[in-house]
Structure formats: structure tokens, C-alpha cells
């Protein structure tokens, strides 16, 4: 069961009319290393990960949905007042003819989200290494996004998200150590 809370995890403001940035931000909405992939990856892996780290996957997976909502808010705010002509001028013509101003789970190039972006191997070390890699890739994407905008408000929210990727990667690395220690210990029944 999930309960929705009517607030963002961290404030999202945009101080510039820069609809082109919405086209790039959507990478973190429906792209391979985006927030949807992250949430679904961890919440799916948690059923079969060893008990000691179920809580971590559950909680990080849940936090990813809050990040997905922040990205959606950025895209929504950047596009809500656009005319069709402005969307075309911002490189969003392809998006407009299929979705109008609705958000959709695709990457910056318009490729729709696919479950092939995520893995579930059932082997805890393999799954956690995938999770660490996913966080590092998302961190890099946030850095590239920060680099291509000069909107300081948008950068502020993106920096928050970039830092969360670092924390998540660190926690997953701790989870690997917990699993390794558990696997190495002698068990008596």
C-alpha cells in the first residue's frame, strides 16, 4: 500500500521560459536511467533480495517516485503555457503531434520506456551492482542536464536530485557489504 502526500520532496521552480530544456529533462522521466526505471527496478527486486536489505530497496524505490514527480513538475512548468508554434520552435513538435502537452514515458529522443531498461537477476550481488550502476548513470545524466541550463532555480532542483543519486549509490554499496558478510558467515540451524 502506498499513501500519497500532496507535496514535492524538494521545491521545483523554473525562472526562465526555456521549453527546449523540457525535451532534455524527459530523459530522467522515461529514459533508461530515469526515475521511472529506478522506482520499478528496486520495488520489483525487493521481493527476492535477502531480508537484511529489503527495507533499503523498498524505501529507495519509494523515494524514486518522489523524484519522478519532481521531474514531471519541471516538464509541466516549462511547457504548460506553450502554443503549438512555440512547441515546434523548441523542438517539441514531434511530442506535440502525438501527445499535445501530456507528459509521456519516453526519453529525450522520443523512444518509449521499456522494461528492457531494468533487470532482475535474483542474485543479490548482481542486482545490487546493477542498482549502483543505475544510480551512477543517473547522477551523470543530472550533471549533463545541469551543464546545459543556466536557469539557477532549475539547477538547484537538479542538484538536489544529483546528490540523492550519490546517497543511494552509497547505501547500495553498504548493502553489498551486508550481503557479502552474511554470505561469508557460518550458519547453524
Amino acid at each position: 500500500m502506498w499513501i500519497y502526500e500532496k507535496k514535492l520532496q524538494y521545491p521545483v521552480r523554473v525562472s526562465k521560459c526555456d521549453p527546449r530544456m523540457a525535451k532534455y529533462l524527459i530523459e530522467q522521466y522515461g529514459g533508461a536511467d530515469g526515475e521511472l526505471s529506478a522506482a520499478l527496478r528496486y520495488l520489483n527486486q525487493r521481493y527476492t533480495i535477502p531480508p537484511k536489505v529489503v527495507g533499503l530497496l523498498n524505501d529507495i524505490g519509494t523515494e524514486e517516485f518522489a523524484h519522478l514527480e519532481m521531474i514531471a513538475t519541471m516538464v509541466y512548468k516549462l511547457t504548460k503555457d506553450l502554443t503549438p508554434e512555440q512547441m515546434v520552435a523548441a523542438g517539441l513538435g514531434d511530442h506535440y503531434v502525438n501527445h499535445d502537452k501530456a507528459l509521456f514515458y519516453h526519453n529525450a529522443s522520443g523512444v518509449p520506456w521499456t522494461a528492457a531498461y531494468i533487470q532482475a537477476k535474483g542474485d543479490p550481488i548482481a542486482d545490487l551492482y546493477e542498482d549502483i550502476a543505475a544510480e551512477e548513470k543517473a547522477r551523470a545524466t543530472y550533471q549533463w542536464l545541469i551543464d546545459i541550463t543556466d536557469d539557477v532555480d532549475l539547477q538547484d532542483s537538479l542538484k538536489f536530485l544529483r546528490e540523492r543519486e550519490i546517497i543511494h549509490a552509497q547505501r547500495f554499496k553498504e548493502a553489498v557489504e551486508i550481503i557479502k558478510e552474511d554470505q561469508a558467515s557460518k550458519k547453524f540451524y
Partner: protein
Amino acid sequence: MEKPVIDDAYYKLLRELQEIDFVLVELNLYLDTHPGDAGALNQYNDFALKRQSVACEFEKRYGPLMNFGHSYSGYPFQWKESPWPWEV
């Protein structure tokens, strides 16, 4: 209940709640991998208590934060009223 005014006071209180919740998310994830850290656990419980009073204050002024009976509602049903998070 009259529609709440979204002014500086709203953003200030929302920010305060977001700050407390950030501490709680951080401590929660830390405790997931360090369950035996009593100091961190004390901080977690302290902030959980502080969170209740700030959330309660926010809801009194601006309406329910949560659905499915986790927040009280004034009449008529306030939950479905804007602003939604992406609108502020």
C-alpha cells in the same frame, strides 16, 4: 472552509516540512543499513515527533496532506482541491 491563500507563509511552512522530511528520509535510509545506531535512531524519533506538529499546523491552514483517511478533511471534501504539488 475557505480556499487557502498560497502566499509567502505557505511556501515558508511547506519548506519547513520539506526540511524535516528530508532529515527523516536521510535517517531512514541510513538506519536501513545501520539499524544498530542508537544515536541516529533517537534523532529519527525526535524528528518524527517534530514532523507531526509541523504537518498538523500545515494541514490546519492549507488542507489535508494525505489521502485515504491519513488526514482529516474540512467540508466540502478538501482533498481534491488544488493546488497539487506541480502547481505551486
